[in-house]
């Protein structure tokens, strides 16, 4: 068995984090339109899996694909330009951040929850059809596990022995819905119900994610069928940037005052459910808002987990960090530069 390369994995995670932080900044500046779903908090999962891929492997993504794109080798400048909607962006400004495509990397996205399942199955089918040892990865969230096409694709992959690694990045949250409240059974059993072996793994721990991935990917390359990975994580920046739940924490007075008026009026209105039921509803909403903060405050930080271990080694952690920081900064500058030129025209 191969040795884990914690240095590489840590660098990958850091690149992803720094890049997404930069994206966030540009979004906050108003340079990026629409929604922006960051993967900050799930870097260990992305890095641990992507690290094991080789040429010809395919990756299917959902609405939260930036990190995987970057770590698989897509140029950060072209990603940023895409987010700006620039013609020189990865997809000529036609796709945008939920619809990232790179033919060279066999990477395809969909903003429709669940599509990464069938998409990965199709990539894997092609790999098998061509008799290669390539595999396909599907990244998706806990919420996608209730979408029919995802479930169908699991059955397909199982019945046809397709080399698909199904990676469920489980933050137990789909926008503002706690997934475990609307999901029957548990997810590893669910995969087993389709004949797919799987396991839970600590998605904060890049070493563990890598260990499982490298092992199952190796087996898939030699002909084994699909595997299911359920990796816990949080999304530090909420569902998307500007997540209304998180805004309550950032600007509590402003945000609460917007809603409390109508809410309280509803609550005390003579017609409606009985008071106990109403109180239940209200308390659920408030606890959801309060809990959402935990995403940010969580002590589990994938980027920190192995920092002590790493700092004991011969490499200079700080030096490497600063190299990556520079690289990202340079990409941002370049993208901004190119973008500015267009705006001048």
């Amino acid at each position, binding site marked *: 068995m191969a040795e884990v390369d914690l240095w590489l994995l840590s660098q990958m995670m850091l690149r992803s984090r720094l890049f997404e932080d930069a994206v966030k900044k540009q*979004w*906050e500046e*108003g340079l990026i*339109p*629409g*929604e*922006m779903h960051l993967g900050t908090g799930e870097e260990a999962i992305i890095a641990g899996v992507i690290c094991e891929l080789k040429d010809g492997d395919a990756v299917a993504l959902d609405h939260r694909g930036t990190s995987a794109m970057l770590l698989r080798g897509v140029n950060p400048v072209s990603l940023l330009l*895409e987010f700006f*909607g*620039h*013609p020189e962006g990865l*997809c000529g*400004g*036609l*796709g*945008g951040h*939920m*619809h990232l495509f790179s033919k060279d990397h066999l990477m395809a996205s*969909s*903003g*429709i*929850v669940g599509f990464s399942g069938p998409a990965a199955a199709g990539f894997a089918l092609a790999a098998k059809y061509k008799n290669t040892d390539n595999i396909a990865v599907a990244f998706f969230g806990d*919420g*996608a596990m*209730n*979408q*029919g*096409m995802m479930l169908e694709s699991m059955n397909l992959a199982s019945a046809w022995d397709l080399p698909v690694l199904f990676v469920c990045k489980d933050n137990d949250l*789909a*926008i*503002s*819905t706690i*997934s475990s*409240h*609307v*999901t029957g059974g548990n997810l590893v059993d669910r995969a087993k119900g389709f004949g797919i072996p799987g396991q839970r793994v600590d998605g904060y721990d890049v070493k563990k994610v890598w260990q499982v991935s490298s092992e199952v990917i190796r087996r898939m390359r030699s002909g084994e069928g699909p595997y299911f990975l359920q990796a816990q994580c949080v999304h530090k920046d909420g569902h*998307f*940037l*500007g997540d*209304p*739940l998180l*805004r309550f924490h950032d*600007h509590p007075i402003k945000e609460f005052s917007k809603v409390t008026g*109508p*809410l309280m*009026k*509803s*609550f005390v*209105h003579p*017609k*409606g*459910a*009985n008071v106990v*039921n*109403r109180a*239940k*509803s209200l308390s*659920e*909403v408030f606890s*959801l808002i309060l809990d959402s903060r935990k995403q940010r405050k969580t002590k589990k930080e994938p980027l920190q987990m192995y920092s002590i271990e790493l700092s004991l080694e011969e490499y200079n952690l700080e030096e490497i960090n600063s190299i990556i920081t520079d690289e990202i900064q340079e990409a941002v500058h370049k993208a901004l530069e190119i973008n500015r030129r267009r705006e001048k025209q």
Partner: protein
Amino acid sequence: MKRMKFAQAIESALFQAMAEDSNVFIMGEDVHILRVNLYARFGKDRVRSTPISESGFLGAGVTAAMAGLRPVVEIMLIDFIGVAMDAVLNAAAKNFFFSGEKWNVPLVVRASCGGGYGDGGQHEQSLWGWLAHIPGLSIVVPSNPADAGGLMLASIYHNHPVIYLEHKMLADYWLDYLGIGGRSNVSFDLPPDGIEGAVPDIWQPIPLGQLSVLREGTDITIVGLGMDVHRSLAAASDLGVQGISAEVLDLRSVVPIDTSGLRQSVEKTGKLLVVDEDYKMFGLSGEVCALLAEQGLAFKYGRVCTEGTIPYSRALEDEVLPNKKRIYDEAISLCR
């Protein structure tokens, strides 16, 4: 009369209907937050949050309606209807017919629609003319708060399936969630009469299938719904400056479609310009032309619609969606 925002009017009509009839309930993703005021008042059995299983819960909505309830099923963005299309195409739209026209399906499918804020091609579609192709459905697209509330009430009390679309540029919370995200440096040019307006104290249903004349004119008929009527009104006022008197019609529902109202106007003006944020071909814009042509009416015809898949880039998007300039130009060329 009081004033309300667009989405507030919808909520207020829902308030009224849910208080009046205990069979009315809401089901969809994240409705405990999206409809938090209704949730606080009516509790979670009547404002039911779902997993991301649109074909499951929309299908369930069809039979829940057949069992006597009046579900308002939410599909967050109409773009997502693809995953649940079978329930629309082969169940909701057909079950009344299949039952020998004996069993009603009083279902409302509520969804947001439309673009102009930079989410790209899978999140900004309109699709109303597409859905309208399926016999057995009504399709409602309000353009202002008063219509939004009155049409919602009518949709809920309609005994057959209605697809009710709220445009994301009119409904403040949608635009805030998806386009603005609480940022103060992002803003949009929004139609004041669309996003806020006078509403009745008690909601009355507005019958489906009656267009409203938003601006009278004699030279050309411009027709659309949702955001398009505001784009058209803006163009009409510019046309006025050029001495062209444009009549602007708000269809309000795609199905039923008010053919006689259309006819009345086009008989007068002799020119028809359809403005349609849905895709151009094989949809609403063609049907309006055909409805009048098959009655033997002769008129000049043009259309300004969404041209192909919607690009993510804000600049490209604004060109591809109908806009004031394209409407103005097309009207000028028809009036030449």
